[in-house]
């Protein structure tokens, strides 16, 4: 099934070409640069839409496949393709990049061309990660992501940005080099770098466990899972608003995607063997990190910890599937867990992005992220307050918003596994509500706290546009998640059938 136009290649390379042009246009005419960047971002989003409209439901085969020899000596191919798991994430990427470019319109004064170019490069590379079907190509995109993000945090970040960005880089690099060793090992076993070939590769339990651990290092750092999450609060706090949005909305999802594309299908027996470990790590993230979020003084840090806690749901959903599968009565529950994790990823992309944008709106005005510096914002910024309260509700998992759907599905799947998993997971509904709403209460409601807050201007048209778009997305996914679930249904079923068969 080859599409006539190489849509995946276009989606990857169009923004990168845009980045080159934006860099070339330089900083002499900032307005031209920004419009150029926005033009390319919008064009990329439009180009990526056929991935949804032209997608054949009901098959787990890779679609929009492109394949060309790249390094013949090592049997490395430029091999792209998508299934129902990667399409939603690609669309999320192209969608969020447009919003991020708009959000950085006025906030960035230092070298806006480099800033916009960095985000365009990020976009192309992230789409590449989601669509690569060759392990070397995947790894190249995976690592290439680090360079623009390293610069985004380091150049446009806050006061402690150097520490944060080097920590971010080294943590991620540490995780991924071991994955590289695992990939090469599988190449020596299978004779090719095809990811789908790795899926079919027979491996002993010992090999699987080692490979699983190598992947776990890479993906757990990216997700991030407790206890390798400590880079995230630092990176989020120091990153500029756009950087935080991309980091939370998409880069974290790449870790989750990695579990579905690599860990589970390549090492199903090891995943089964070690599922309790991952479930324990996920539950600790959900509960413990939730409590950590409760005591934060810094809004961005609070949202960062909330991200870790919500991503715990994703990994919980993925690995609870193994326990559910072991109980013959509850076959449907396994799919529910994985689909719930996927919905949670997309939903968290919207909600965390929106919350970071809200903090960005405040930060652009007062240049503080401390909760204590605000109070009574609703009096001067009623529109903004409405958005912030809405997204906070969504973050807390209010039914009707997208935040509810994913969490509910995962909790439901956990019930079929064991009551206590579900019980622990469900505490997040309380803790999540507590830390988000308490933050909103302290920032938005109450008396006007100080002169700075008294002088605040409400959101302008540009900011309102970005926040409204995200609010619609959150509502739409919350009220009508069916299209997203249908999109991935066949792929998830296929994945479940695959991991149910032991490789031993």
């Amino acid at each position, binding site marked *: 099934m080859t599409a006539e136009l190489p849509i995946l290649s276009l989606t990857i390379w169009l923004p990168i070409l845009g980045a080159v042009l934006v860099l070339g246009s330089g900083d002499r005419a900032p307005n031209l640069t920004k419009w150029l960047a926005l033009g390319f971002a919008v064009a990329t989003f439009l180009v990526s839409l056929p991935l949804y409209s032209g997608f054949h439901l009901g098959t787990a085969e890779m679609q929009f496949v492109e394949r060309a020899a790249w*390094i*013949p000596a090592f049997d490395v191919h430029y091999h792209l393709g998508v299934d129902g798991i990667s399409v939603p994430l690609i669309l999320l990427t192209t969608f969020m990049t447009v919003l991020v470019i708009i959000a950085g319109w006025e906030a960035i004064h230092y070298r806006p061309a480099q800033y916009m170019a960095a985000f365009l490069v990020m976009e192309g590379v992230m789409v590449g990660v989601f669509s690569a079907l060759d392990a*070397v190509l995947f790894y190249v995109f995976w690592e290439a992501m*680090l360079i623009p993000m390293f610069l985004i945090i380091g*150049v446009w970040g806050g006061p402690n940005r150097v520490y944060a960005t080097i920590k971010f*880089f080294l943590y991620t*690099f540490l995780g991924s*080099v071991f994955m590289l*060793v695992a990939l090469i090992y599988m190449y*020596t076993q299978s004779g090719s770098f095809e990811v789908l070939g790795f899926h079919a590769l027979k491996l002993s339990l010992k090999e699987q466990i080692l490979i699983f651990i190598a992947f776990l290092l890479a993906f757990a750092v990216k997700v991030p899972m407790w206890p390798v999450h400590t880079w995230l609060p630092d990176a989020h706090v120091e990153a500029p608003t756009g950087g935080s949005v991309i980091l939370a909305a998409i880069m974290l999802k790449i870790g989750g995607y990695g579990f579905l594309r690599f860990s589970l299908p390549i090492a199903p027996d090891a995943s089964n063997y070690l599922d309790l470990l991952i479930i324990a790590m996920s539950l600790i993230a959900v509960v413990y990190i939730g409590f950590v979020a409760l005591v934060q003084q810094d809004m961005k840090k609070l949202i960062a910890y909330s991200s870790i806690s919500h991503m715990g749901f994703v990994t919980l959903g993925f690995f609870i599937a193994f326990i559910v599968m072991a109980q013959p009565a509850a076959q449907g529950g396994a799919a529910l867990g994985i689909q719930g994790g996927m919905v949670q990823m997309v939903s968290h992309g919207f909600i965390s992005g929106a919350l970071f944008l809200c903090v960005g709106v405040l930060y652009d005005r007062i240049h503080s992220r401390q909760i204590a510096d605000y109070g009574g914002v609703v009096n001067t910024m009623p529109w903004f307050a409405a958005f912030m309260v809405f997204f906070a509700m969504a973050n807390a998992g209010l039914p009707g918003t997208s935040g509810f759907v994913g969490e509910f599905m995962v909790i439901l799947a956990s019930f079929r596994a064991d009551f206590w998993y579900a019980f622990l997971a469900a505490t997040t509904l309380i803790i999540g509500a507590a830390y988000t709403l308490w933050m909103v209460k302290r920032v938005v409601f109450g008396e006007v706290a100080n002169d700075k807050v008294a002088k605040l201007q409400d959101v302008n048209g540009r900011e309102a546009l970005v926040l409204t778009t995200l609010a619609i997305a959150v509502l739409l996914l919350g009220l009508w998640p069916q299209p997203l679930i249908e999109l991935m249904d066949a792929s998830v079923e296929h994945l479940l059938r695959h991991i149910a068969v032991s490789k031993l």
Partner: protein
Amino acid sequence: MDMDLHSLIPLLPELVLLLAGCAILVLDLFLTDRQRDLTYVFSLVALAAAAAAAIGVGGSSREILMSGNFVRAIFVVTALAFVYSRGYLQARRLYRGEFYVLGLFAALGMSVMVSAGSFLSAYLGLELLALSLYALVAFDRDSGAGSEAAIKYFVLGALASGLLLYGISMVYGASGALDFATVSETLRATDTDRTVLVFGLVFVVIGIAFKFGAVPFHMWVPDVYQGAPTPVTLLLGSAPKIAAFALAMRLLGDGLGVLHGDWQQMLVLLAVASLALGNVVAIAQTNIKRMLAYSTISHVGFIFLGLLAGTADGEAAAMFYSILYALMAAGAFGVLVLLSREGLEAEQIEDLRGLNQRSPWYAGMMLLLMFSMAGVPPTAGFFAKLFVLDAVIGIDMVWLAIVAVSFSIVGAFYYLRVVKVMYFDAPVDESPLSAPADAVWVLSLNGLTMLVLGFFPAALLSICTAAVA
């Protein structure tokens, strides 16, 4: 052996270089300082002619030439060194013909090392290279550090040559021959005394390790890199790595391939020690030339990893790595040379402060070079590491690959620090850099090569595979 002219054809590139070197040396005597550019141009022409000759000779005579491509890579990197250094030398009254003549002789030495078919000619090439470099290190004769570095380099280099020669004499004693093919054949065919052979092998390996600067024979590297004038460091730190790799492959692979099991263990030790010490000690450096010296040591570890595999894949990977490393080193030192021109010597990492604000283009090139050295895709450095790791895992030494990647995480830190200084720190002086147009073009080419080879590594890899086949 009858010496008709026809049998000299494979030697054409070397002959061209030799004659050109002598001619330029004489010509330079009659030039005034203003006409010095002629020497520069002629030297580049000589290198180009030699490279063209190497293409012309091609692979027709394998027994003498390993491959024209190898030699060409050396000529290209030497030419890079010449182009980068012109402005620096002019600004310091060091713009003399001798720099180029010695550079040409060094290139000749390297080319002989690569093409050598016997232990003795390889040794002669090595000595020609080494003697030219000793003189070049002391080129700035008023600099105390330069003279100190030259003496150190000379004493240790002479010692290493002695050890290598001693090892070669043992091999000769055991096999009765000096050319690689005969030695290899004799050792394979007859039941020679292994004690003498392995004894000789130890000395040969030590000699090679000295020339590479592998731990524990690395002591000279940081001092020489730091003490020599930056253009000389550029010349010394780049192309000779390719030649040293060729030497190692010739001596160990072609000559003493029978003893693979023995030298593999030695190289494992050298590689792990180099990776560990190079990467860890580089973190503590504030002088960027010294930092790059330790980084060289760690890269040598990676080249050894490819060599010790002993497979064709491994040799191709190590060759890819050494060619790429020579290009990266040439580019990185090239940036330093260009930065140094405004009266100050760019030697501290701090001197790169705020380069992105001053000259975004240079900063971008240096960024590519640093990420390439760290081995981050999409730069070519990643593929160099990938191929080497693949060779190591291919011989079932997964643990060695894990050691190597662990140390490359450590290494990433100090390369990142250079990027941090360039991009995140405020500049001390805001003025943009000015550099001669030719150097800027070449630097851009050099930096972008990292990206181009990162996107399309297959071409260079297939050249390397063909060369070692």
